[in-house]
């Protein structure tokens, strides 16, 4: 009995480590920006290139910043969720069209619907770099003081919206 105890316990430890390792998603890199001020930008708007979209305009509001692109398949998956959330009126979602063609982006929104009150254009991907974006879609929850409170990597799904985004938004609204 004693002979097997040591190998067995080592085996169990290894299994636990590997099991935890299997559950981790290497794509989900914790963002160092959560809890820090949202990087400033002033980008032309998609529908009105002469007007600038800047986070400074949204001080005092809780809002979502959603990086998307017409070429991104994950954004297509996420889109119905954003439409639903926009329709509910719980929190405004502002779009950032990441490294995209203006006409293609507008055609995409025309076809699938536009959940954004304003869409900024980040054609060179510089705003994306400042926000630590490494693959669209990515979504940030920004509070009244302009601080990033949450970062979603990859498409939002109804479950994440209901369990993470909305409770967080409510909590931030009440502050």
């Amino acid at each position, binding site marked *: 009995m004693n002979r097997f105890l040591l190998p067995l316990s080592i085996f169990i430890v290894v299994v636990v480590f590997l099991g935890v390792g299997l559950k981790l998603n290497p794509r989900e890199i914790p963002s160092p920006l959560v809890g820090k001020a949202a990087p400033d930008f002033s980008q032309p708007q998609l529908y009105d290139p002469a007007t600038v979209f800047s986070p400074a305009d949204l001080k005092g509001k809780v809002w979502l910043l959603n990086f998307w692109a017409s070429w991104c398949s994950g954004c297509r998956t996420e889109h119905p969720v954003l439409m639903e959330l926009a329709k509910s009126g719980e929190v405004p979602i502002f779009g950032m069209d990441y490294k995209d063609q203006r006409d293609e982006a507008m055609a995409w929104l025309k076809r699938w619907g536009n959940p954004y009150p304003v869409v900024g254009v980040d054609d060179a*991907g510089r705003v*994306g770099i*400042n926000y*630590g974006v*490494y693959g669209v879609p990515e979504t940030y929850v920004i509070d009244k003081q302009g601080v990033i409170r949450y970062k979603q990597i990859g498409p939002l799904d109804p479950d994440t919206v209901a369990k993470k985004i909305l409770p967080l938004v409510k909590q931030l609204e009440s502050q």
Partner: protein
Amino acid sequence: MKWLMLITLLWSGQAWAGEARPLADDPAVEARLKHLAVELRCLVCQNQTLADSNAPLAEDLRREVREMIAKDMSDKEIIDFLVARYGDFVLYRPPLKATTTLLWLGPFVLLMVGATALVITLRRRAHKVVDVPVTDEEHRRVEQLLAEGGKRS
């Protein structure tokens, strides 16, 4: 048919040539970029360095680093810029911190455990191995048995 093959071969050769992208003009900037980029991870294709990757984000980041080099920022400033946005994950050599102590010290701990286990096992075995004296009579018997075995085969 041969012609077709020849054309295909030539064509593929051209495609290969196209992959080596010409980098920016200033060789000094490129040298520093190269030196920095091998230390940085491409976040899209996570097991490649920023230098190796052809992902669009890697290209953008190389452009960003190139611009910072042109602005005469130090290596540390450039790396801090990237770490502030992407976290320690962009570094191929993670810094020694409270959260990474296991990563840095783990291999040495395992080595120590292994070495201790080895020493203990060897000592135990040394106790078990006892010199057994062999008499002349036994020697003769062994030789006889071996000789018989040789005949049989």
